[in-house]
């Protein structure tokens, strides 16, 4: 009975509403209004209505000059070494087997397929893997290289090409005038947003600047406590409210207090949300809009878990649509996961990876460097 009923209900609904949608869509001339200001029941609160009146007035004139790697706390140099050490610990397998294959005498189809498989195993994705292999194949053919060193150089170049050397990867964390820089941290559940916020705050404090944390994760149990713990470790203040309050209001308060206290950077931690939940994604959009009433959002960092497979691409896409992601933090790269999804995400969305998380230690966050990343993947010694 339920089945029947349900089917009928959906059918009727779809017949009536379906055409409605389509006509709607056509009527609007296929220009999706940014955030349907007509405001159905699902719309925003009264706060939003003022939005157009309060544009982020200052043009990006004062945009802080790119900060190369200043977010590192004192052991600046140590970070990269650790990055390399950690990466090669887990990922050498990839580089080694690739080189082994490449330096074989006869590179037959099977060998190439194996190379492709190896890349796929690194979560690079079928399409990018194929492209890398094809390009490499052509090059090897053209150059006739057989020397492992040469092939390695080619491979490195190829991987670098895929990751993209020329992206702007610095994090804008410097205040502009009286306004603090605002960093919004987003992502699906369990990728390490709160931890990344904590580490980032630490890094910025390490650079001698002040940070304010906004615990806009009002959903998960004890998320604000977790952030508070991070904050108290580095002496950063945390703006928080009771569980279940509107995250946008927490973000608003945080930025407001950030401006009042004249801190340099405000980092807003948000609740993990699956990109498929429209309601939650709308909520996130609201958080950003509300922040923009007071200050410009300098960075929207999407936290991606290195273990994530091809779904990561979908996540990145949806988040980029909703909050215009400006950078990616790839976490848990210290595990066996290869993080190959980086390649796919950059290819598809043009959003650069800016940070990598390499462990549970408080300073295990480093800026992403393609060269070091690839070097680590291929292994320095071979």
């Amino acid at each position, binding site marked *: 009975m339920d*089945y*029947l009923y349900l089917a009928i209900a959906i059918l009727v609904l779809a017949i*009536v509403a*379906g055409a409605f949608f389509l006509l709607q869509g056509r009527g609007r001339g296929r220009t999706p209004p940014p955030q349907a200001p007509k405001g159905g029941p699902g719309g925003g609160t009264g706060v939003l209505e003022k939005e157009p009146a309060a544009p982020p007035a200052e043009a990006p004139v004062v945009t802080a000059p790119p900060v190369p790697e200043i977010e590192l706390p004192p052991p600046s140099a140590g970070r990269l070494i650790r990055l390399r050490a950690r990466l090669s610990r887990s990922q050498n397998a990839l580089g080694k087997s690739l080189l082994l294959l490449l330096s074989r005498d006869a590179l037959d189809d099977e060998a190439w397929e194996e190379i492709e498989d190896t890349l796929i195993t690194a979560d690079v994705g079928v399409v990018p893997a194929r492209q890398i292999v094809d390009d490499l194949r052509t090059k090897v053919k053209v150059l006739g290289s057989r020397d492992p060193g040469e092939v390695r150089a080619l491979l490195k170049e190829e991987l670098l090409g895929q990751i993209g050397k020329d992206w702007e990867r610095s994090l804008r964390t410097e205040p502009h005038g009286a306004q603090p820089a605002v960093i919004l941290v987003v992502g699906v559940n369990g990728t*390490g947003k709160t931890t990344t916020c904590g580490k980032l705050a630490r890094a910025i404090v390490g650079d001698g600047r002040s940070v304010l944390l906004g615990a806009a994760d009002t959903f998960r149990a004890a998320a604000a406590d977790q952030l508070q713990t991070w904050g108290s470790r580095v002496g950063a203040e945390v703006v928080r409210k009771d569980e279940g309050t509107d995250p946008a209001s927490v973000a608003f308060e945080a930025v407001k207090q950030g401006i009042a206290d004249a801190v340099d950077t405000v980092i807003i931690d948000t609740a993990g949300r699956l990109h498929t939940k429209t309601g939650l994604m709308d909520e996130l959009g609201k958080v950003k809009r509300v922040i923009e009433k007071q200050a410009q959002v300098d960075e929207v960092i999407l936290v991606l878990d290195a*273990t*994530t497979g091809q779904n990561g691409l979908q996540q990145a896409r949806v988040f980029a649509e909703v909050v215009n992601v400006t950078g990616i933090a790839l976490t*848990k790269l210290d595990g066996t996961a290869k993080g190959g999804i980086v390649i796919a995400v950059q290819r598809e969305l043009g959003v650069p990876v800016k940070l990598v998380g390499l462990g549970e230690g408080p300073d295990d966050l480093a800026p992403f460097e393609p060269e070091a990343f690839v070097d680590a993947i291929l292994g320095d010694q071979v």
Partner: protein
Amino acid sequence: MFETLSDRLTTVFSSLRSKGKLSEADINATAREIRIALLEADVALPVVKDFVAQIKERARGAEVSQALNPAQQVVKIVNDELINVLGGETRRVRYAKSPPTVIMLAGLQGSGKTTLAGKLSRWFKSEGHAPLLVAADLQRPNAVQQLQVLGERSGTPVYAPEPGNGVGDPIEVARRSIEHAKRSQHDVVIIDTAGRLGIDVEMMRQAADIRDAVTPDEILFVVDAMIGQDAVTTAQAFVDGVGFDGVVLTKLDGDARGGAALSVRHITGRPIMFASTGEKLEDFDVFHPDRMAGRILDMGDILTLIEQAEKAFDAEQAEKMTSKFASGEDFTLEDFLEQMQMIRKLGPIKNLLGMMPGMGQMREQIDDIDDRDLDRVGGIINSMTPGERQNPKMINGSRRARIARGSGVTVTEVNNLVTRFFDAQKMMRQVAGGMGIPGMPGTRRKAVKAAGKKNKGKGKQRSGDPRKRAQETGKKGAPQQDGVPQALPPGLGGGLPGQLPPGFQMPDLSKLQDRKKK
């Protein structure tokens, strides 16, 4: 760009369907497509290779050459293999002979262990047990607090003698928790451990030590459904490091197709016992391998849909509606509004449609649907008087203008809604007429399908479409229009065989029938 496993396989099958016989080249093409599809769904490479090899083997065998329709056979093979890999039957929790039953959770960071602990405790409680949560994640900041909050929500006591945040010895906590449970008469102990990496020797040792200290009856490996190729390495590391008896797949409510389920199951041979499908404590279920396979094969996840519907729908209303429907009474806008609100309760309409069989191909159109449009439709209806809702025919020009003003839309939109509604009403009448007595809802559909399954089936299934298409062309007949409406009837009846991989509607439906008899 991004295609899910079911999309991909559907493409494969639709190209197969057009051919009479399966040649060696066909098999290879199919195998290649299945391989790519599985890889894109994050099934681990070694598993994919095995899987594809099996498919090829079986496709080449006698089964196909004897078959009437080779495409059906391939679909069947793929489905069988999927269910095979996913573990066939569902496994239940093993309770200890002498309580307490100890359950230990292990997994990577951020896979959802602590949340799962809360969900498990709620579940055990609803099964009539007295669970105890043990906070042995002393690593992550405030994991202990999180567990305490969850325990509070599920009404389960939490044993947390240590404050956490790096302080305290989890092994000791675990050991003492057992005594505590015995003392305080808890028959299930759920130990939440810290997230750890497979390669972290020290942490794996710690997990093994916890295991040795409490000798758990079940060690559950918690894994994120979104995990990629690393699933294999991680699962293997955990099998070697602590060993586990069952797997819990979390975050299944995302759109990851759960290739990890296939991988982990295949590599470790351990069954997937539970699935976690949301952030709330009640979003938790026993894992159903057959459903998962169905979902992957684009057969829709009708069973889950029904379960959700049962929870969300008001039984009384449903009853009223069904009897009304059966008695052939006219369907009013009031009923429609009611229905729409109930459906809204089920969650985003996109997800719902996605669960309907045959919807994989429509994914793009589905993605365009915005729930807010539904609310707008609701707004329009709400701007009508009760009389107008009962009898939409009375809505004339000036009423339309008033309704449009009241709901903040244009008159055209009101017009559209009303005209579409008449069509729907007409259709409801037809369907109701063809359905016969209530209580035998499947009969007609089944018959149609049985007919459709044999030879061609095209004539039958098309019959649904032209009718609707005629109606549609009556309305400004834009080519685009058949997008959504055409997609929907398959869920109901007529068009089903065309949308579903052939050979699948029968098992699926018979399951439904069984269910209803219960």
